[in-house]
Every structure is written in C-alpha cells, then in structure tokens.
C-alpha cells in the first residue's frame, strides 16, 4: 500500500517529480502513468525526477526510470534524473543497470540548467530546420 502519492509539480515548462521515500513497484508504475498524463495535459517540455532521498533503487525501479525517460522522449519531453546517491550508483552499476539514454545531474539546480540548455538547443535546431524549408 502506497499511502503517499509522489507529487508532480509543474514549474514553468518543467514537471518536477520528487520521490520522497522508497516506493514499491506499483507506486512506480502509477507514477509513470501520471507523469505521462501530465505531459499530455500541461504540454510540459521536460521532466525532472529527483531521487536524492532514495537510499535504495532496485532493478525494477531502475528500469522504470529508463522507461519513463524513453516514453517522455517520444512525447517530445526531455527527462533528467537528479540526485542519485553514491551507494545507489554503485548498486545500479553492479546490477548492470546503466540507465542508458537517461540524462543525469548532481542536483535540481544542475538538472534545470541542463534541461534549459537542451530546450534551447532543440529550438535552435528547429529554427534552422524551418529556415531550410522556408524558401520552397
């Protein structure tokens, strides 16, 4: 039973997800569902997941983080996971879960900066693309 729901806050264009306590598999699945719904409803461009309070991440949660990132990316939102603790990082590496394709940052501050940069990058590229098509 997961009494606590993980809060999803919208700050500007970012969905801020802060996982406050160790969560079970069902809660992770539910979180995935809610994050994707929120992306659809709020038109958020990026997702920041803060797991600095997690002292343990099992293989299921690890895979779910990867999945959320891939799914969000299909929905055109960048994901960054921040605050992975050293012990958690070592466990994940030993488990062979490298979270490939997931961006990481040290803390929320850094995470937001990275998301901002990526957004800017993406927009610039799109602008260039639009220019190329314009003359036709």
């Amino acid at each position: 039973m997961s009494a606590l729901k993980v809060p999803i806050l919208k700050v500007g264009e970012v969905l801020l997800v802060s996982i406050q306590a160790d969560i079970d598999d069902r809660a992770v699945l539910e979180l995935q569902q809610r994050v994707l719904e929120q992306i659809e409803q709020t038109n958020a461009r990026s997702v920041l997941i803060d797991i600095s309070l997690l002292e343990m991440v099992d293989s299921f949660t690890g895979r779910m983080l990867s999945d959320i990132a891939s799914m969000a990316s299909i929905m055109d939102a960048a994901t960054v996971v921040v605050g992975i603790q050293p012990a958690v990082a070592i466990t994940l590496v030993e488990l062979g879960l490298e979270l490939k394709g997931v961006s990481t940052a040290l803390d929320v501050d850094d995470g937001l900066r990275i998301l901002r940069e990526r957004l800017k990058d993406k927009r610039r590229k799109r602008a260039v693309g639009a220019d190329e098509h314009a003359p036709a």
Partner: protein
Amino acid sequence: MTSDNNPSQAVINPLTIKALTEREDAILEAWMNNRVNSSDFRETLISGEELRADSQSFLRAFIMAIANSNVEEMRGKEFNAIRRLLLEISEARAAQAFSPSETAFYVFSLKESLLPFLRDEYRDDPETLLEELNKLSKALDKLGSFIFVTTIKNRERVIRQQQQDMLELSTPVVQIWDRIICLPLIGALDSRRTQLMMERLLERIVKTRAEVAILDITGVPTVDTQVANYLIKTVTAVRLLGSTCIITGVGPSIAQTIVHLGIDLSGIITRNQLSDGIRQAFEMTRQRVVPINAADGEPSAEKGDTDERAQSSYSESW
C-alpha cells in the same frame, strides 16, 4: 615426526638436568667462547656483554624448560617462558640487522657447547649419552625453527599494516577548480582498492558538486581486463550521479593493451595527458584560461563565441 612416541623417551634424564644446572656457568663460558671465536660473530652489530646477558637468560630458561616437560611437544608453562624470551631475543637481533638464520644458528650452536659437559657426565654410558644428546638437540632444533616462524609472522604483520596504510594513502581526491576534481591513481589496481577509490570519488563528487571528475591513470603500470572493467564501472557510476568522468594519462602502452584486449572504451572520454583532461574539463564547465595580455586586449568580444562553442560541444557529449 619421530619414531619414539613413548613420552618417557622424550623426557630429559634428571641426571642431565642436574649436570647442566650445576655447570651452567661453565657451559655459558664455553658457549660464549664458541660464539666469539666463530667466524660469523659480528661484533659491530652486538656487544659481547649484550650477547652474554642474552645467552645467560636463554640458557637458564632452556634448562628450566627441559627440566619438567616433554621435549617432543614443546608445550607447557616452561616452554612458554623460553618462547617469550626467544621472541624478545630474535626481535632484538632483527633490529640489529641480524638475519633470522644467524639467530637460529646462534641457538643451534649451544648444542656444540653442551656436548663436552654431557660427555663428562655419561662417560661410562655411551648409550644414554647418545639418547640425551638426541633429545637436547631436538629441543634446540624446535626452538631454532620457532625463530623462523616468528620472523615470518612479524614480517606478515608488517606487510599487512603497510598494505592498509597504502590503501589509505593511495586514493587522494584533489580539487582542481570549482566543480572539477581529480583522482590521481598510482600503482596497481585491485578490487579492494578500486572499490574504495570508487566510493571516495563518488562521495567527493556529491560533496563538492563536481561537474567533472578526472581519473588520472598515469601512475598505473598496466591495465588488464579487470582493471579496465573497474574503470568502466567507475565512469558509469559517475555518470549516474550526473557528472562526467574523464580518464587521462592513457599512454601508448596502455592504449595498445586496451585495443589488444578488445576492451570497448568508446563513450568514455580519454585523454593522453592530465593537462588535456583539465582543458577539456574547463571547456565542459564553460570556463577558460586565457593569457593575461590577451584578456586585457579584447575581453568580451571573443568571449561569447567561445562560450557558444563550449556549450555546443558540451551538449554534444550527451
């Protein structure tokens, strides 16, 4: 290890004990003469008085030890006393730069000095003389070999201590700049060291909020599959924390080994020199070092351009 398991066989004849006790001083004298005149006596290392004092207490303890206990087993209170004494002597000798074999030979040399006194005692009974000599000789052999055992034990203790110290010493994490840290690795990497190194590095990254961690392997003699695996694991863990790892100090021989072993280091930023790594780290943290006059000349005009470049190459590394 011997044929006679009969305990009575292994107990020294009271007559022998009596003879040795009575003539202790004479035996000591004979032993000292033997030592001082022998070719391997090194008076630069030990004074005659010291040798005599040691020998006297050793001889006394030896006689006490063999008086009541079984020489075959070398156990009991009496032997504990002589073992302790021998331990002290051999440690002192080791400190005076005697080799363990010299100390053992010193103990063995007592045999020769005991011989004439036993011969006097058992002049009419060669059978018993032989038996007694045999037993005394066994006891001294055991004591002699005990020296080697303790020497090796002591050395092992020292080695363990040094390994521990090295482990502590060998993983300093250096802060190079704001949010750039460096871990210079020196010496061979094994699993224990790498584990400790990884933990330290990750902790420091979190503590200093380091964006870039430079792993300098200039001082690592060889890289095998295992070491490379450790490095890859460390780099992955650092990435999970949200910072980037650069491996520097990859010389020609290590580069060759890595390729020959078929290890895939793509996706890991490697640099030849530590300085190249630091330059890369500056770029990734959107900083740069410029010569003073250049900075005076045109401070802001060129800056925007390089910043842009630095940023784009930074985002490319994602």
